[in-house]
């Protein structure tokens, strides 16, 4: 029997000052100021239509992502969060994250965001080196990146994440580690340390930059992980490292196959209906202007699709095996409504192969399985 999982809220702000060549998220260049108030209204209308599906449930976390949400003024974010609270119950201790650019323009608003109710920042630093930053198409420089952390703390954010990439064009392992050391020195509670990958439908995919050799990237990851552990950042997901007690609750809910409403252009959601025992995925129209134009006409604003029973095990694993701790076998049943035995005989094959391990009621990847998670997952496809 499907249990009701925790509920999160993802809100997408699709505008950026400009599009970065590696980014495959739904982001669009803002020509002039983005239409903040009409977009906030559209988001709230969007929320209202989603509400019946989650009636009586409490939102545990909110994540405002993008795009560059920090392009929006603190007032707009404040109105948005107030509007959300007016429509749905938000837990008192809810984690409310906002993605921000380290640029001066945005960091000036940090205090306002804090006052609006945001209690966690995720700052897209990516690198501290001018040349990589330029190649990545980032609009901030080293100094701004360095100051962003201080400004966040001064603004009252004792909980913030830094996004940092490795395997950048022509980057050496030493340079990557230096970047990491600088980031650690800024004392964030959380670090997303992830490899640059050339995603389809990006400029980098079309015109690949000269990336470091596999062995060099491997060295960056291995030594980076050691460095992070040394400084108390514990890896809990493929690319996520947190200080004790500061894992990202919002993302954890994704990875534990929890529910989330997706509001905004191109946002995806997942909602469990325990009465019918079904899980539905929802999505919203991607282009911001089309999304705005369709406000008030739900049938034009997006779509929804039931996840078929036979797709559930794979989708669950695709999320849960990303966690270092894996998942409790009981959770599999709670979230999919299916017994864990449904994973057989592939599960046993992966256990035999030394890709997965079973311990204290948990299933998780071995070290090999973790490094080759895509291979493990492919075993469960079809």
């Amino acid at each position, binding site marked *: 029997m499907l249990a009701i999982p925790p509920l*999160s809220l*993802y809100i*997408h702000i699709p505008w950026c000052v400009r599009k970065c060549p590696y980014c495959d998220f739904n982001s669009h260049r803002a020509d002039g100021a983005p239409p903040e108030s009409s977009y906030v209204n559209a988001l709230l209308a969007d929320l209202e239509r989603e509400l019946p599906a989650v009636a009586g449930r409490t939102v545990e976390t909110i994540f405002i992502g993008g795009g560059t949400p920090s392009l929006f003024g603190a007032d707009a974010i404040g109105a948005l969060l107030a509007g959300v609270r007016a429509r749905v119950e938000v837990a008192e201790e809810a984690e409310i994250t906002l993605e921000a650019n380290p640029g001066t323009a945005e960091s000036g608003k940090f205090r306002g965001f804090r006052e609006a109710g945001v209690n966690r920042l995720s700052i897209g630093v990516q690198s501290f080196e001018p040349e990589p930053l330029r190649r990545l198409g980032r609009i901030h420089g080293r100094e701004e990146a360095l100051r962003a952390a201080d400004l966040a703390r001064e603004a009252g954010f004792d909980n913030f994440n830094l996004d940092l990439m490795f395997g950048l064009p022509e980057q050496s392992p030493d340079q990557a580690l230096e970047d990491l050391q600088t980031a650690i020195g800024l004392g964030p509670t959380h670090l997303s340390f*992830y*490899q*640059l*990958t050339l995603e*389809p439908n990006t400029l980098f995919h079309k015109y690949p930059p000269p990336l470091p050799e*596999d*062995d060099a*990237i*491997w060295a960056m*990851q291995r030594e980076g992980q050691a460095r992070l552990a040394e400084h108390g950042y514990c890896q809990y997901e*493929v*690319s996520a490292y947190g200080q004790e007690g500061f894992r990202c609750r919002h*993302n954890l809910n*994704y990875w534990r196959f929890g529910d*989330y409403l*997706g509001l905004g252009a*191109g*946002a*995806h*959601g*997942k909602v469990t209906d325990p009465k019918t025992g079904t899980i539905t*995925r929802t999505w919203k129209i991607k282009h911001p202007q089309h999304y705005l134009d369709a406000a008030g006409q739900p049938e034009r604003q997006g779509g929804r699709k039931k996840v078929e029973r036979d797709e559930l095990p*794979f*989708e669950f694993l*695709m*999320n849960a095996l*990303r966690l270092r701790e894996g998942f409790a076998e009981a959770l599999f049943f709670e979230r999919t409504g299916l017994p864990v035995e449904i994973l057989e005989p592939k599960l046993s094959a992966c256990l035999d192969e030394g890709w997965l391990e079973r311990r204290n009621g948990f299933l998780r990847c071995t070290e*090999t399985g*973790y*490094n*080759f*998670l*895509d*291979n493990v*997952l*492919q075993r469960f*496809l*079809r």
Partner: protein
Amino acid sequence: MADQQHIRNFSIIAHIDHGKSTLADRFIQTCGGLSAREMSEQVLDSMDIERERGITIKAQSVTLHYKARNGETYQLNLIDTPGHVDFSYEVSRSLAACEGALLVVDAAQGVEAQSVANCYTAIEQGLEVLPVLNKIDLPSAEPERVCQEIEEIIGVPADEALRISAKTGFGVDDLLEQLVAKVPPPKGDPEAPLQALIIDSWFDNYLGVVSLVRVVNGFINRKQRITIMSTGKSHLVEKLGVFTPKPFDKEVLQTGEVGFVIAGIKDIFGAPVGDTITASDRPCKAPLPGFQQVQPRVFAGLYPVESDDYESLREALNKLHLNDAALQYEPETSQALGFGFRCGFLGMLHMEIIQERLEREYDLDLITTAPTVVYEVLKTDDTTIQIDNPSKLPPPNEIAEIREPIIEANILVPQDYLGNVITLCIEKRGVQTKMQYMGGQVSISFELPLSEVVLDFFDRLKSVSRGFASFDYEFRRFQAAPLIKLDILINGERVDALSLIVHRDISQSRGRDLVERMKDLIPRQMFEVAIQAAIGSKIIARSSVKAMRKNVLAKCYGGDITRKKKLLEKQKAGKKRMKQVGKIDIPQEAFLAVLRVNKDS
């Protein structure tokens, strides 16, 4: 209905691209009085029917009625011939059904070897050969030079060769007139017992076997009982008729006519190409000459990527076999690849066609092992065995001698590329037997081991001659040679499906090339993969594929899930056509690596 004197049976001999189908279409249009548009519709319709029924892709013959300038109407039967060196027996049977042949030569490109071979077959069978220069409308046309080539190379007079353009229609009427005037009517005795030659047979899901026949003597009626001479079996004729090109039912096929016969025959072996049909109640004394059982020359193992597909593969082969007498198969087991089939083909093209049909029409993922020829092995106990799979070679101490098949290749090449072609043939262990200068081209013959020809000879020949050389070959004999078995080991395991038989002198370099090539073809895996080439227990070359360090998506959050899933699905699909040997994924290309060796050296 035409009397015997007004029937003309003919084929078109032409190299690929020299305009055979355009000319055939033009004939249909001229004789049928259809517009170009109607005609294309009609031809297409007929193709659709055929496709739905899964018979053949195009009509094998077409019967046309041509009103000549003398006011009389002639029945023209155009019989199609396959256009590839692998199918020379089928060509010879098609030509045996004709009294004449149009030798269509591209007026710009000149004569090509395949046409020469088919033309010789036609002349040997006593056909009237009419040379025709096509594409005369091209600015690069050189009719004088090409006429000279026809006379020198083929040895038929070309002074009356018509110059036409099948594309524009120029000269086509004159050609039909010439055809009627010069090609003799069929001889045949209407009073004699029935003898009909099976030109082609194919399997239709609804009708059973459909045979295209030429009535040589006597006649054949609907509801008549006939006997297939090679099987001795008697069948009732259910349907007969001609293709116009749509099937058109008739009550009788007269002496000299060409048409189809359907007699409830269940498989293709019940009516093999080249066989003779006679009347059950009044049989002829002897079959028509020239019938042969087809002999596959090239063998390869076909294995399903997913072992669950083994039965589906068997069924698919069974179905293709119904329609293709030249395809042979029998179950075989490989240590590396599991259960599969050893299949015999006429040649590489035939193999590729079968492989493609199995994958496309039957949706099977297959691994094909490197094609090999049949070797004859004289054992120390004085027995001789035939080997169609290198891994079946007896241990060295039981082998007295290994003999390989030798063919004679007849190559036609412009003088400028002669040096390159000779170099290639010598590299392929060829021995020159003939050389003759003819106009701007040279006709040169080499005896070559068939094994060297099936590998990559055709592609190499085209590349060293910039596409100008053409060739045709015939089997000559088995001949002893210093041949040895070369094994490939992957992570120390001998992979039987990768073994091959090679000449001792090139075994070292072949081994080195092969492991290098395989290194590039085998993708990086979770561990290092060692590739070795060995002769007996001696390792002669090695290389390795470095281990992949990791394979994991860096980012995956809620919104991405569907997209990331698609990415993983795509990655997985990329692994299709890879076979797990032990724990190693080996792609199809690696099994055929031997075909790629030397290609760009």
